[in-house]
């Protein structure tokens, strides 16, 4: 990849060195170690990244919500930057969750899309944060944009628990409940190997999220420093 690791701090390096083996171990767990599901077959293995992506999307939007509240209280460039990068990553992983869900749905339900509560609420969540990213691109003073986009960020985060609870509240049989199902409240009748692989996938994608968030924020902070330096030089030339 084009991201230069030698420009990063020690935390980024540690994250990078955790991420690479974790990704490889994760692929081994998914394709070799975890058993093949009896009814759905190989296609069920999409599940591990599908759930991981959805989890990281929720986490990313909660981070957006957190920084949006802070921005509304007192706008600071750093808060604005972290909220923006987290929203980008959240949209990326929501897109992944939607697309992998569609592919999985085609294989197991014989349809690419169905108007089911979990899917509808996830799509709404995706639209809210795409709108949020567009608002951030608007022209004008950054403080005004930061406040306006924060409102979108908070509206979006309200939707996160609705997406999570959709299958429970509307009790649809189509989308399975994964967490908090069964006698021991661990999962919807999954084998222990499947459950372990799922949690490892969630861990790996969470590390990827933190790595991308830090990297993206560093670049944006640098952009702000350059903007200020350019203004200073222009002022110098003008005077």
């Amino acid at each position, binding site marked *: *990849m*084009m*991201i*230069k690791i030698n*420009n990063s701090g020690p935390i980024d390096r540690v994250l990078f060195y955790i991420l690479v083996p974790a990704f490889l171990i994760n692929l081994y767990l998914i394709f070799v170690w975890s058993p093949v599901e009896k009814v759905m077959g*190989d*296609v069920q*293995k*999409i599940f591990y*990244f*599908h759930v991981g*992506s959805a989890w990281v999307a929720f986490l990313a939007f909660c981070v957006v919500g957190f920084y949006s509240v802070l921005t509304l209280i007192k706008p600071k460039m750093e808060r604005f930057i972290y909220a923006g990068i987290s929203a*980008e*990553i959240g949209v*990326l992983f929501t*897109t*992944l969750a939607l*697309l*992998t869900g569609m*592919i*999985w749905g*085609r*294989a197991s339900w014989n349809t690419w899309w169905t108007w089911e509560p979990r899917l509808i609420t996830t799509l709404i969540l995706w639209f809210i944060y795409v709108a949020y990213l567009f608002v951030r691109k608007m022209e004008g003073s950054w403080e005004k944009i930061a406040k306006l986009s924060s409102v979108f960020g908070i509206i979006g985060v309200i939707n996160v628990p609705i997406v999570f609870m959709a299958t429970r509240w509307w009790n649809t049989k189509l989308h399975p409940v994964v967490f908090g199902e069964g006698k021991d409240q661990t999962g919807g009748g999954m084998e222990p190997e499947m459950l372990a692989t799922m949690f490892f996938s969630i861990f790996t994608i969470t590390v*990827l999220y933190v790595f*991308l968030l830090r*990297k*993206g924020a560093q*670049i944006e902070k*640098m*952009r702000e420093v*350059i903007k200020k*330096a*350019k203004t200073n*030089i222009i002022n*110098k*030339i003008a005077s």
Partner: protein
Amino acid sequence: MTYLLMGYSVIFALIAGYMMILGKRQKQIEKEIKQLEEWNQEI
């Protein structure tokens, strides 16, 4: 098997795509830093 391949292709393509976007942004920043250094020398 086709759907599984399709699923993981989408996953890696999108993640790689976003990393490339970040890489592009970083390159742009490096370019601007060079430009700033040139401006500074001229001043």
